[in-house]
């Protein structure tokens, strides 16, 4: 299953093994793990709650993967995103892209993260010493996603 939203943790080795199973034509496995930091926007963060929009989330992630498949020759790609309560150093999201060539796998991995950051309905709420707060979206994420609209392939 190329898209999963789950409360539990994931293991990158097991995910890559399952994705590659039965394939001898893969030359490049690019992957990205987003991890919870204990610091954000100038203050300590002790806990993170990830909310999502069930139903839309899976559809949005699948659309992002479909678009990646349209842009690069990928043998497969995967997104696993966790929801619920998380602690510093916990894994939040995993993206894996398989291709014959490294340029395409790496570009697809960056693209999927950029689009996920601006199009997939997840929201983070942080607990800090000063109380809880919703994480604000970053303009730099919109810019990163915008890079791909010109059709260039960095």
């Amino acid at each position, binding site marked *: 299953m190329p898209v999963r939203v789950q409360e539990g943790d994931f293991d990158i080795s097991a995910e890559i093994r399952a994705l590659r199973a039965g394939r001898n034509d893969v030359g490049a496995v690019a992957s990205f793990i987003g991890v919870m930091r204990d610091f954000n926007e100038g203050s300590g963060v002790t806990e993170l709650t990830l909310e999502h929009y069930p139903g839309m989330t899976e559809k949005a992630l699948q659309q992002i993967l479909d678009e990646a498949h349209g842009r690069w020759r990928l043998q497969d790609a995967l997104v696993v995103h966790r929801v619920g309560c998380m602690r510093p150093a916990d894994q939040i999201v995993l993206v894996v892209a398989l291709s014959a060539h490294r340029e395409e796998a790496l570009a697809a991995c960056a693209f999927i993260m950029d689009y996920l*950051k601006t199009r997939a309905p997840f929201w983070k709420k942080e607990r800090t010493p000063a109380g809880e707060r919703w994480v604000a979206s970053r303009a730099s994420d919109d810019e990163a996603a915008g890079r791909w609209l010109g059709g260039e392939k960095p």
Partner: protein
Amino acid sequence: MATVQLLYFARLREVLGIERERVVLPEGVATAGELRAWLATRGGAWTTELDTKRQVRIAVNHDLADAAQPLSDGDEVALFPPVTGG
């Protein structure tokens, strides 16, 4: 007359104090943008949060929509802040 299901997420859900509601669209409210403007007339937090200067995303039937997106009877319409996953 179109009836739509409204969903609110994250900060918007908390500040408005509502998770979901079913509304009958009045005359002149036929697009996502018109729906937002109409909800903003409710006053209080509704007016503040749904002001056109605030960043609010709207999804219609699980797809991100722009203000011009027409609404139909039975649509699921979600309003939420810019996403912050990943």
